[in-house]
């Protein structure tokens, strides 16, 4: 696409007048083409003063509960934290290893960057579909399939999003319980997409993104 065409597409995308199919194309371009993403951001800034003129409307009271419920966490995460602590308590540590670990943790005096995290990958309200536990320090990731049903001819694929990545990074297929390894910072978001059996043919999510979850520190 010529630069002028990209610019016009960005302007109409931000104005909102593209049809549904064109909007999807523009969003795909936004993910893959840096110049387009920059053009979109500039148009958003040019036009956003118009949004600030709109008269506020207080949403119904139940929306607050609904939305805070939809972002996950809460009771679910507290329960998981306890579980993780139990697993941790069960692992018998030799004195030397414990001392080494303690020294390591004191030396790395940035506790929030260390330690274990969980991400609960779940849709709106039914229980968790997958639970991922992540050890940021070692890069170990364990994924358990909880309520997600296997789908014929399809694979679930796990992605790391954000945390300094320009594009989602595949962490592999998670059709069963899986252990894998990756460098993840605590601000990474994990996402699960439904792909053709064997995984995304392109290296980027091609199917619907079914679940996403942030990493939540377990201590």
């Amino acid at each position, binding site marked *: 696409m010529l630069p002028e065409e990209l610019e016009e597409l960005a302007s109409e995308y931000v104005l909102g007048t593209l049809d549904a199919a064109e909007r999807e194309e523009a969003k795909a371009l936004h993910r893959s083409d840096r110049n387009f993403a920059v053009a979109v951001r500039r148009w958003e800034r040019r036009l956003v003063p118009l949004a600030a003129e709109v008269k506020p409307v207080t949403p119904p009271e139940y929306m607050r509960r609904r939305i805070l419920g939809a972002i996950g966490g809460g009771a679910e995460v507290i329960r998981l934290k306890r579980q993780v602590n139990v697993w941790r308590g069960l692992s018998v540590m030799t004195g030397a290893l414990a001392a080494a670990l303690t020294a390591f943790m004191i030396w790395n005096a940035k506790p929030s960057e260390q330690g274990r995290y969980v991400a609960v990958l779940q849709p709106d309200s039914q229980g968790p579909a997958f639970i991922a536990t992540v050890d940021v320090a070692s890069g170990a990731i364990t994924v358990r399939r909880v309520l997600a049903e296997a789908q014929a001819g399809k694979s679930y694929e796990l992605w790391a999003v*954000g945390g300094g990545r320009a594009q989602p990074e595949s962490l592999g297929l998670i059709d069963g319980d899986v252990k894998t390894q990756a460098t993840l910072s605590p601000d990474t978001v994990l996402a699960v997409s439904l792909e053709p059996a064997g995984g995304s043919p392109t290296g980027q999510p091609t199917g619907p993104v079914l679940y996403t979850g942030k990493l939540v520190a377990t201590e």
Partner: protein
Amino acid sequence: MNKRDVGLEKLLEASARGNREAFARLYDLTSARLFGIIRRILPNAEQAEDALQEAYVKIWQRAELFRPDLGSGIGWMMTIARNQAIDLRRRSAERMSALSEEVDETTPSDDADPEALAVHSDSMTRLHSCLQELPTDRQQMIVLAYHQGWSREELSQRFQRPVTTIKTILRRSLMALKECLDAA
């Protein structure tokens, strides 16, 4: 950037770290503004509520992607809300007829949120002076599309011009607007 927006940015940062209390506070401070934007685009209450929920879930999930050096926190959130509402309006099977919708052409001085106006006041003045350089019908097209989410087809019905003409007019008007804004 005013004091209140700095507060919003701190709350966004805390939300990015998974702090639910900060996110709840962020919701309390911004939900009326976001819902106002969404309701104009989605007059159907149920759709508007779904869009509000989707928008806040995205804000929660993407909070760490917010870059304060590239714009205000409220601007970033309003953009997410608007995109969500327009996606839903475009995908919506039962097309709402634009002609039956009330055209809301109130000017900002009548009903705007003074705090939001303060955040964007300079850029708003400039945007309006650039918009006024366009012919009146073109100003209206841009404002109807931006505020009420009208599609090219809906604009084509109201302004009695073919859809392809509307597309050309919109793109030319936006490029003229850009030239004016970037020159300032």
